[in-house]
């Protein structure tokens, strides 16, 4: 079980959270990019064998959204939100 570092609550069990997906690029202006770049933004997510940046929602806790870096091979949280050990 993951212990996910919430900036408000500290380390809490993964079962209190809902996964919000990997962090991708910011949404571009569809009129300012090529079709290929637009499709890439819509459909391709980072899928690294290693640390991935991802969003979690503390839905069954305080309701905070947070971002961590988690290793997809080990589940180690390699980077937590600021101020959380």
């Amino acid at each position: 079980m993951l212990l996910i570092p919430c900036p408000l609550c500290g380390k809490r069990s993964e079962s209190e959270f809902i996964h919000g997906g990997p962090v991708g690029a910011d949404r571009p202006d569809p009129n300012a990019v090529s079709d290929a770049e637009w499709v890439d933004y819509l459909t391709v997510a980072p899928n690294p064998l290693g640390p991935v940046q991802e969003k979690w929602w503390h839905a069954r806790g305080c309701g905070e959204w947070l971002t961590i870096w988690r290793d997809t091979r080990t589940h180690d949280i390699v980077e937590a939100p600021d101020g959380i050990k």
Partner: protein
Amino acid sequence: MMVNIITIMQKYSAFSLARNALSGHRNWPLAWRSPPLKDRYDVVVIGAGGHGLATAYYLAKEFGITDVAVLERGWLGGGNIARNTVTIRSNYMRDESIPFYVKSVAMYEGLTRELNFNMMHSKRTMVDVVQTWPKLRELRRRQLVMDIYGSTYEQITTEEMRRRIPALTGGGPEARLPIICGMVHTDAGVNRHDAVAWGYARAADAMGVEIHQQIVVQSLVRGADGAIDGVETSRGTVRAGKVVVAVSGHTTTLTETAGLRLPLRTMNLTAFVSEPVQPLVDVIVNCPDSGFYFSQSDKGEMVIGGAPDMGQSFRRDIKQHVFEDTVTAMLSLFPSFKKLKLMRQWGGHLDIAHDASPIMDQTEVPGLFVTAGWWGGYKAIPAGGLTLAHLVAKGEPHPLMDSFTLDRFRHLDFVMEAGTTTAR
């Protein structure tokens, strides 16, 4: 001159069993060879799992392409073909999907004879336990599309379902999610996963396909013209004008080495098995609203699966809370299972595409083919192998798979199966 000695495949039969019994079973020929690795083949298939082996088999059988090497980093049939719950079914949602799965189910039913290998196929029906109205609406919608393509789906009452599955004693009027009804998919069945891997391997080998285990493919090699030129492996470079990536969860790890970006995420799906008990449940039970499914194996074990782990994962183990959630859900409908002891647990990592449908295509790197995004790809092995062999041999998608190319993403023309699998 190098001479390839192709073994004549010994037919498995009651006669050969009796004959080998006379010599104490010491003279059975090997099921497949272990030839030395050459430095060039017509086709290299990466991954000796279900899809890789089936593709190699149909390349040889249907298209006469036998200069094929299947490269496997672990052991033959040790990946996801050994890490699923052997459920074979065709109850999908989309016009594009159902004919493919109907074909695959039919091919599975003839596979014992085709490969001369006992698949222990058991066409035992799947029953969906419906506990919410949105799920019932979704399944009825599936039923209407499935009717068109000759798949089977039929609604039954809760009473009828409890008669067919006596162990289903939970989900009564006082439950948090009372059972509404059942949906029955009579085409569904189970078989023996090792037999599928070994049967395809043995038959492909007999036609000249080489299977090489414990060779790690580290990267894809492109030629000066940009086309695929082979693979870099732990045993050196192997050249091939056509390379097939059939590695499930590690697809992007490999295709990134050729500079490709694919709309795939890798996730972990787990299953576990109880101690063997007397025959108790003779259908596959699927409980989509509670989040688990199971069937009883011929040995008597309950083979149980649940929802995937949230987030991306390349792991092959099971997380404690995923396990606990699945067991809790199961006990709410099958309280008598509380007495069962669980014997084994495992996980596999598989990739899921943006629209939860498979991807089978030649990539923008000429000669490089991928088969990926098989969420529940076990049921797709025969038709997946046949259609991929067609694509590799002819350069054109098989009609059953022509909606599943990468072009659908370029045109945002998704085949949306999200929600019809356990994928969330």
